[in-house]
C-alpha cells in the first residue's frame, strides 16, 4: 500500500460497511483503513502496537465516529490536531449524534466538517458524498 485515502474510525460494523460501500460505490476512495476503536486509530496513525511495523504513510483524510470504545472520537480528534505530524490532515466527524454540543465541540477543536449520519439510505449516501471535498482530485469519480 503506497497511499491511504481514508482512515475510518467506526465501531459499528453495519455503519462501517455502509460507509465503505458508499465511498467505494461512489469511487471516492479506494484505499480505506477501518479501525474499530480510538486506541487502535491512535496506534495506526502513530505506528504503535500492532501497527508499529506498518509502512510510514499517513492517510489523506480521517473520518471519525464520536462514540467509539477506549478512546472517544473527540479525544482522538484532539490528539491529532495538537500533534505536529498530524495537525494538517483533514478530519471529518461522521456521527449519529445530532446534538449541537457535540457539533460545537468538534468544530472548536478543528474538525473540517461534522456530518450527522441520517437514517434513510439515500440521505446517508448524499451525506457521505460530502467527504469527496476532502479527497484528492485523482481519486474523484468521473461522472
Amino acid at each position, binding site marked *: 500500500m503506497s497511499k491511504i485515502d481514508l482512515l475510518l474510525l467506526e465501531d459499528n460494523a453495519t455503519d462501517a460497511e455502509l460507509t465503505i460501500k458508499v465511498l467505494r460505490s461512489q469511487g471516492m476512495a479506494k484505499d480505506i483503513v477501518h479501525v474499530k476503536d480510538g486506541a487502535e486509530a491512535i496506534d495506526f496513525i502513530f505506528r504503535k502496537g500492532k501497527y508499529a511495523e506498518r509502512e510510514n504513510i499517513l492517510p489523506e483524510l480521517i473520518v471519525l465516529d464520536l462514540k467509539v470504545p477506549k478512546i472517544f472520537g473527540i479525544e482522538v480528534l484532539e490528539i491529532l490536531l495538537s500533534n505536529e505530524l498530524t495537525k494538517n490532515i483533514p478530519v471529518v466527524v461522521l456521527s449519529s449524534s445530532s446534538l449541537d454540543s457535540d457539533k460545537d465541540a468538534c468544530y472548536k477543536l478543528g474538525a473540517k466538517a461534522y456530518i450527522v*449520519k441520517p437514517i434513510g439510505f439515500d440521505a446517508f449516501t448524499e451525506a457521505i458524498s460530502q467527504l469527496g471535498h476532502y479527497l484528492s482530485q485523482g481519486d474523484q469519480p468521473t461522472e
Partner: protein
Amino acid sequence: MRIERYINIGFIVVVLLYVAGTFLTYSTNKEIIEAGKELSKSNRVLYQLESLKREIITIQSYSRAYIITSDTEFFKVTSRTIDSAYQRGNVLRNLLVGEQQQLVLLDSTIKLGQMAAKRNVYMNSLVKEGKKDKAVQFVESGEVVALITKIEAMIDKMKEDEQSSMAVSEQVLKGQQKTIVFTYGLRAVLVPLILLAVFILMRKGFRALYKTQARLTQTATLLSGLIENAPVAISVRDAEGNIIIIYDALLKSFGLTTEQVKGKNISDFLPAAETERIKLKDLEVLKSNIKREAENTLTVNGLTQTIFSVSFPVRDEEGIVNYVCNIGINITDRKSKEEIIRKMNEELQQKMKAVTDYQYALDESAIIAVTDQAGKIIHVNNNFCRISKYTTQELIGQDHRIVNSGYHSKDFIKNLWTTIASGKVWRGEMKNKAKDGTYYWVDTTIVPFLNLVGKPFQYVAIRSDITKRKLHEESILALNQQLETTISDLKEANKEMEIFTYSVAHDMRTPLRAISAFATLLQSEHATGLNEEGKRFLGILDDNAQNMGKLIDSLLKYATIGQTTLSLAQTNITALASKVIDELRVTDPTIKANITIGNAKTIQCDPALMKLLLQNLFSNAFKYTSRTNAPKILFDSYQDNDEMIFFVKDNGAGFDMQYIDKLFLPFQRLHAEEDFEGTGIGLAIVQRIIQKHGGTVWADAKVNQGATFYFSLPYIKNDSYVEN
C-alpha cells in the same frame, strides 16, 4: 465728732464768753462808776463837813479874839465864816439829795448853827457895849458850849455816816474789782485757750481739707485723664438732646470730629430716627431716674457701628435730675467676633448634637463596650447587659473572657488583638456566651482610640446581635447542604439523562439506519428476488425506520430546549418568519397556501429558538391547510401592555377546543396520523420555547374552520416597530 463741730462749738463758746464778759464788764463798770460817784460825793461831803468843823473852830477862835481885843476885824471874820458855813450847808444839802437821814441831820445842824449865830450876835452886842466880862462869861456859859458841842457832834455823826457809806462803796468797788479781774482773767486766759484750740482744730481741718483737695485734684486729674483717654463715648445731655459735656472717642469711627459735636444738639449730627430714639430713651431715664443699658446699631455718615451704652441720670447744680449721662462702648468688633463665635458655637452645638445623636443612636441600636488598653471593660451599655445577661457591675473591670464561648480558635483571637493593638479597626463575627450559658452571635467592630503618639489607650467595641441571622445562616447552610445534595442528585439524574439522550441520539439511530439502509439496498440490489408485496414491505420497513428517526430527533430537540440557556438578541421576527417560510417552501414545494405577513416587528429573543418555534408553527399551518381549498395563512402581531402578541392564523382543519388541554403536551395528537403525519412534539417544543422566554402560548380553533396560534413575548422599551 467731726472737727467742724468742734470748731463750731469752740466759736460759739468764744462768742458766748465774749458777750458774757462784755456784759459783765459793762455792769461792773457801771457799778464801779456808781460806787466812784458815791465815793467822790462822800469825799466831798466829808471835805465839806471837815471844812464846816474847821469854820466852827475858826468862829470860836475869832469870837474869843474879838472879845479879848474887841477888834471888829475879828468879828467880821466870824460873820463871814458863819455865812460860809451857811453856804456850805447849802452845798451839803445838794450833795446829800436822796440821803434822808443825812439831810435830817443836816437840817438839825443848820438849825443849831442859826441858834449859835444868834448867840454870836448877842455876844457882839455885849462886846460893843463894852461888857467884856459879860461877853466872856456868856461865851463861856454852858449853854453856848453845849450848843457848839452839839453842832460838832452832829457833824461828826454825819461824818461817821458818810464814812460808813463810803466804806460800803469801797466794799462794792472792791467786789467789782474782783469781778473785773475775774472777767479779764476769763477773757485773757479762757478765750485765747479756746481760740487756740479752735485754731488748732481749724488748722487740722484745713490741713485735712488741703489734703483732700490735693487728693481731689489728683483724682480729678486722673478722672479727666481717664475720661479723655478712655476708648468710650461719654456725653452729658439735657432732655432736648443738647450736648453739655462730650468726651467721645467713638466719634472718629462715625467720621465725626469733636468740633462737630461740642455744644450741639444730637439732631445736628445724628440721623433723625436715631435722634428720636435717643431722646425717648433719655426721657425714660430722666423720668424713671433709673440707669438704662442698651445696645444699638447705628449708621452715621454711612458708617455702621454697634454701640453698647449705659445711660444714667445726672443732677444739675441745684440737685435736680436734668441731664442724662451716656457712656458708650463700640462693640462692633466684639459683636462680629461674637457673631463668629456664636456661629461657631451653633455649628459646634449642631455637631455636638449630631455626635450626641450618633452616640444615642449607637447606644440605642448597638451593643457597646469600652475597654482600657489592657482589655479591661470600663464601660458597657444596656444592650451589652441585655444580651450578655450580666449586670454592669459584673462586667466592669472584667475582660471579654467573661463572655468567651470558646468557639473561636486561638489564632482568631490573636489576630484580633494584633490588629487592634496596631491601631487598626478589627471587624468580624463572634460567638459569645451569656451568663446563663446560652450563646449569641455578634457582628463586632473594634475601634482603637489612639493617643497623641498613636498608641491605643482604649478600645470601643460596637456589636450588633446577629444571632438570628447566624441561626438563619445555619439553617440556610443546612438547607444549602440539602440543596447541594439535591443538586448533585439532580446532576446525577441529568448526567444519566444526558447519557440516555446521547444513547438515543446515537445508538438508537444506528440500528434504524441499518434497517432503513439494508431495506433500501435489498430493494435496489436484490429486486429480482422479490415480488411486489415484498418490495412494499421493505418500503414500509424503511419509512417506519425513518419516522422513528424523526421521532427521536424531535424528542431530542424537546429535551435539549430545557437545558439550553437563552442567547438573546434584538431579532426582526417578521424577517425571520419570511426566511422560515422560504426554507419550508424549498423543502416542500407542494405548499400552495397564500401567506400574508404583517408589519415588521423587532423583539428581544433567542433567534435560533425563535426560528425553531416558527418552523413548527408554520409547518403545522401548512400541514393542516394542505387539504383546504384556497388555503390562507396570516402571521401578524399586536401589542398588549408590556407584551407583544404574535399569531399564526390559518383556515385549515382546525380542532375541537375541548381537547385544547392536550394540544401542547408532547406525543399528543388531535388528528390521525393517516390524515396529518407528525410526531406530536412540535407544539410541545413551541410551548417550551415560549415558556423559556417568559411568555405564554395559546390557541383558538374550530373544527374545519381553521386555527389561530398565539404566543406572547415580554416587550421591552428598546423593542420597536419597524415599518416595512
